[in-house]
């Protein structure tokens, strides 16, 4: 408990509002907002970032991450008091102090005589932990009152169990080097490591394991490559899909000294284990009976570094594998530490604490990323369409609303405008007949899952060089790795999947143009249908993620175009 009446006397007017439910509200228009953000981002997770007030949340994990990064309770409390507009509740400060104080009371160390040991500076905590039912089987004999030996293979599981108990252990047991393999970065005019990427890689290498949090499009792959170059040993890269694996491969070939022969792909199609192996999560967790053959095959290798792409999507079985390889260096990459399955604590204990985090706005300010502007175009359905929607079976309702013909005119108007402005435009939809209709109306090629690869390559090529200004693509095509970048995307139906995925893909699809023009995303929505309900959810999410969001009426839009 920190008693400092002087701090309470600080004149009100800071940019931060500290709520007793441990959320922090940061008012962006305040002159001190940027400075404040820099301090609180170290220990609080950004939850929502709409235009005026951003919401951060302090969680035990966030605080422990901060503690692992070297922040102590005093400085956290001091930051809160310094920036808070209102008197910070004493109970909250006490809770923060207490939570942070829990990290590091137990330490995993490599003892020269006894091997891996769990050591404590606070004997009752060790007693409590050693008696917990989940922990007893993981511990070996007691060496002295403050030290218990730990079976090496249980290093990960012990950390997992301890964090569940609320006493996260600091892992200082070190790492094995793995088989060395030289890797070097190839920096040139087209590719140089950005400052924050270099810092992230350094922060990771210094600690040996942990998570680097960077927003979409900020170049997480580059951070991984820098880390690989520093570690220079055999590396396993776990990615979400084959598509992503190939993307990685391309990047690795382009920007590192690695050659085709050195990079293996371990996926459903190919099973290559090479000095740098790209494996998908799916193949790692693929079962044959009760066995995980691929996981075993990969675990047997002497990796010096394991890279986890998109840590927030890491499937649970991979955690189990990770628990067994705690002596390897592990680098997690993600845009957000928030997991939909609430397994944040496993990321913390098994991959490692957050090692690097750079505010999104900083990267934006450096001109590396820019959010697309999002516009929702609301189309009022014709009466017969409304009736068709009303009469549709519940299962078909979404389709009835989403494929309304009234949308076509709007899409056409948008495309015409975009093409006139010379913007490459993608039209994305879910329903094939709707896409066909659009293709005919727009005289644009339609690309679906059924399109042959060669044809697809051709169309993409034509689109890139501007021969085809408008491309109509289905949702399936959207997952294609070589989907070209566009500056305008028009979504007529369907969503990309989870809201989070959607935002990420948006970010990937719509890079800012070199001349600084903003990319645009249009979503054409049928008014008064459940199409609009989905849109409302998306709108909320995108607004939370800081995308500028606007709604226009189709009539207004068409009117403007006509005018």
């Amino acid at each position, binding site marked *: 408990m920190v008693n400092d009446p002087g701090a309470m006397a600080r004149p009100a007017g800071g940019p931060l509002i500290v709520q007793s439910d441990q959320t922090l509200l940061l008012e962006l228009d305040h002159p001190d907002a940027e400075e404040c953000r820099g301090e609180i981002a170290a220990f609080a997770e950004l939850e929502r970032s709409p235009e005026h007030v951003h919401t951060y949340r302090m969680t035990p994990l966030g605080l422990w991450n901060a503690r692992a990064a070297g922040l102590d309770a005093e400085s956290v409390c001091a930051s809160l008091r310094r920036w808070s507009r209102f008197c910070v509740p004493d109970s909250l400060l006490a809770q923060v102090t207490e939570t942070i104080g829990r990290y590091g009371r137990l330490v995993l160390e490599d003892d020269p005589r006894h091997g891996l040991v769990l050591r404590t500076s606070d004997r009752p905590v060790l007693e409590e932990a050693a008696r917990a039912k989940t922990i007893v089987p993981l511990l070996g004999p007691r060496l002295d009152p403050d030290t218990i030996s730990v079976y090496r293979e249980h290093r990960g599981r012990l950390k997992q169990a301890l964090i569940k108990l609320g006493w996260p252990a600091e892992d200082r047991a070190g790492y094995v080097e793995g088989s060395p393999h030289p890797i070097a970065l190839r920096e040139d005019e087209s590719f140089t490591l950005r400052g924050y990427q270099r810092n992230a890689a350094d922060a990771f290498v210094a600690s040996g394991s942990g998570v680097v949090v960077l927003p979409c499009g900020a170049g997480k792959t580059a951070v991984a490559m820098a880390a690989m170059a520093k570690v220079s040993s055999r590396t396993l890269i776990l990615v979400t899909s084959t598509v992503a694996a190939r993307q990685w491969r391309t990047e690795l070939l382009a920007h590192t000294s690695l050659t085709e022969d050195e990079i293996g792909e371990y996926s459903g199609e190919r099973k290559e284990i090479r000095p740098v192996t790209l494996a998908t999560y799916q193949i790692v967790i693929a079962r044959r009976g009760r066995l995980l053959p691929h996981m075993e095959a990969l675990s047997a290798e002497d990796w010096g570094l394991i890279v986890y792409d998109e840590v927030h999507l890491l499937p649970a079985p991979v955690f189990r594998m990770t628990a067994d390889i705690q002596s390897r260096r592990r680098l997690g990459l993600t845009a957000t530490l928030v997991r939909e399955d609430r397994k944040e604590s496993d990321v913390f204990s098994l991959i490692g604490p957050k090692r690097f985090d750079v505010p999104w706005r900083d990267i934006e300010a450096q001109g590396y990323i820019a959010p697309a502007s999002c516009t929702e175009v609301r189309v009022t359905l014709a009466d017969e369409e409304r009736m068709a929607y009303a009469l549709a079976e519940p299962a078909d309702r979404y389709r009835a609303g989403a494929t309304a013909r009234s949308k076509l005119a709007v899409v056409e108007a948008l495309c015409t405008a975009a093409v006139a402005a010379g913007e490459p435009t993608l039209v994305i939809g879910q329903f094939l007949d709707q896409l066909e209709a659009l293709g005919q109306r727009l005289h644009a090629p339609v690309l679906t899952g059924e399109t042959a690869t060669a044809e697809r390559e051709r169309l993409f090529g034509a689109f890139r060089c501007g021969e085809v200004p408008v491309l109509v693509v289905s949702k399936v095509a959207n997952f294609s790795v070589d989907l070209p970048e566009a500056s305008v995307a028009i979504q007529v139906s369907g969503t990309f999947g989870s809201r989070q995925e959607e935002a990420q893909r948006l970010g990937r699809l719509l890079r800012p143009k070199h001349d600084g023009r903003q990319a645009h995303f249009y979503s054409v929505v049928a008014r*008064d249908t459940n199409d609009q309900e989905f849109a409302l959810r998306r709108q909320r999410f995108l607004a939370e993620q800081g995308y500028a969001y606007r709604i226009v009426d189709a009539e207004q839009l068409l009117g403007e175009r006509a005018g």
Partner: protein
Amino acid sequence: MSNDRKNEALSPKTKTRATAGSSDRRPSPLSSHVEDLEELDEDQLAVLLELRPDLAEPAPASMEELESRAFSVRSVLRVLMDADNSVLQVVQILTLLGDKHVRLADVHRMAGEGTEAAVTQALEWLGRRHLVVAAADDELCIHPSLLTVRGAAALGPPAGEMVERLTVSDLQSVLQSIGRRASAGRKAQLVREVHAFLEDGDAVRDLVAGAPAEVRALARRLSASSEPVPLPWNLASSPYGRRDRRGAVDAAVWLIGHGLAYRDTWLSAIMPREVGLALRGGHPFPADSYARPGVELAPLAEPPAGALEARVVAVTRAVERIVECWGSRPALVLKSGGVGVREVRRLAADVELPERDAFRLVEIAAAAGLVVEDTHREIVLPTPVADVWLDLGLAERWWALAHSWLEMAVHPSVAGALDTRRKVVPALLYAPDTPSAAAAQRRSVLRTVVELRHGHLDADAALASLASWDAPLAWSDTFVPAPLLVRWVLSEMELLGLTVENAPGALASALVDGDFGAARRLLADPAADAWDLILQADLTALATGRVPPQVRAELTLLADVEGRGSATVYRFGESSVRRAFDAGRSGEEILDFLHAHAPKGVPQALAYLVGDVERRHGHIRLGRATCYVRFDDAALATEVLRAKKLAKLGLRQIAPTVLVSDSPQHSVLSTLRACGYLPVEESEDGTIVRAASGAERASLDRHRGGAYVAGAEDGTDLRPGCWGLNAHGTDTGAGAGAGKDRARALAGALVATSAGGPSSASRRASALGRQAAPVELPTLLRRPQGVLPGDEDELFELLAAAGAFDDEDEEHLDEDVDDFGEPPGGAGFGKELPGAQVERPSEIARTPAEILRLLQLATEEDWLVRMSYTSGAGKTYEVAVNVLDVSGEAMLAEAAPRWSEQKYVLERIGWVRVLTDVEEELAW
């Protein structure tokens, strides 16, 4: 109070006294106090009322009332609650002196040396409150109530009676043992001598000084308190002159034997006042007890204004939340009284307060009148006062809470504490309306803390000692140890912002002085009332600062609260915006409100949300109606809607061809028919309901009779076998058995009808006649007995008899019946036969032609009619008649109520209408 006023308070009232009479006739003390009050001028009276606020509240109607109030023990007690130890000791000295008039010198003598200043100050204190009045230069007149209120310095009772109770031999024994010559005189003489000894303090002290050590110890103990000392049982019978074989002496017995203690009960003795006083050196209290104890506590630095204000804001906001929470969901009261820990815990979670503080604030809010128990509904909810309070400024709101806290008659910290059974004491359990010591205790702690500039919880014992010196009466009888009470009060002060981190702030001083102005100056920061509302594109809103109640209420209507704390986070959603539309807001109003209060503007997404909801709100409407009337064309609908005769149906048009009504369907139907329309009934699936043709039947399955005719409803499976006919070997043909079957079925129906409740014979008869009876039953029932059978068995006998009749017998019975003539109520029977029914017209005939037609119809149908008739004498009256014959210009009819036959001239009939069934039944 100025010095001269102090002096004046004790200056002798010589002028009145001198004129009142001669010096030997002293006025009675009471009248002297009355005079004393009566002589006060306006200013002096004001001072008195300020010092004794209980005299002014409620405002006394007259001087007499004020006087009687001022002399009541209760009022005196109230004054002494605030008296410090020194004053109370002087009061006790006055009591010891025992007279209503005492000499000032005596008081000083008894108080002892070195106490003069304190005694004078105490007497002045009492004088200012008019409890002691200076009667002469060195004489005081004591308020009689003052002498009754306090035990005398923990000394025993005067020796007088105790000595009287001794026998002569005991007295002699005592005198002998104290070394005085026991004269052989009368008892009175002996008693006097003992008294003389006891009055001689030096002699008593010498005696005790020479006593054995254990006697001295006991004597010291007894002199310090008036507690009785137990006697050894074997010596209790006669303690005088006793000593045991070894010469050892029980200390108590020694004291009794030497006249220094007296038997109080069989097995205990007490020390008389004189002895106790003598052993205390003639002074009931030690000289240093007149001075306030010194307490060494380092004063703490005054807390910064910002911190004070933060506390004040926090506590007022918490109470606001309590009002808000209990306003939307009142707290339930426990059966055993009070608001239970579960409710308060929930509240604490809502308000985000520690549980104990939630208990305290609930008590304080109740004391401030913001929440109150509704004893009828057994809930606790906010009062209208709370609305007034919510509209006040920060300083006013805080002052209301702090002042209520200071004056409240219970300790708010009692609620939420553990009782002796380790159970949590519910909130609002105690609500004493009488002044209690709690307020005085609290005030004394507050004063002490302000004075010492120190309110640390660890200093509870020191603070308690000071506070209890300042107001000993307030602290004298409390179940709770004083240090704990002090800790409670300190916690409450911290909660209210009177202290911050144990250091009392300027607000505490303002509260002690009752200086609201000072508090307002301290809390007058305009930023405290500043507020802001930020609306964001993700449909959230953030309200910070002190949002005015109206704005907050409107926001709560428009959006759901997502998070609370220093700022409130709202989320707009379709359902929340709809709520506002439901409450009657228009889209324009909502947006105007948002634009007016959100300086950063309304995000487009929110404006669209409001617009969307507005567009769709009310597209579907519903209401309540009992039945609908549907038309094929709108013109007919309009006609029906406008028909005056149908106005009573309350028809409303909801579509060009649809009307609805709240009247029951059958009455709408019959009224429409009566007006000449030809409506049909529609079933739920839109088909036309066909009117039942033929006789009605009771639905038997619901009646007890159903047991006998299971499956008989459709008439296809009538199995008279179950009626017992098979047992008799009778064939189930429609012949002889039919009458009996019917009888049995009817019996069932009849019993079921009567089982529904007591009903008159006529109603049972009509039930039979209308619902189930074919023609035979009424005739059957019109048996010579003339009454309906009351119970089932009787009825069975009757009906069985009917079943035994053959066809001729039945006819015979019919004839028989005719002979009995028409019994009362029988009129309804044969005339309402199913199939013979003609709809009774409901209109009133007014023209001669109509009247004639209606009368003829009534004659034919044998309906009773009601008509207005003007007699030959020119008197118009209304009468119900049974028309017998209409011919030419006159008619012959039986007139109610005696049904005497009369002739009526048709011309004089004003109007005629046919009675309804019910009316007819009643008329007969």
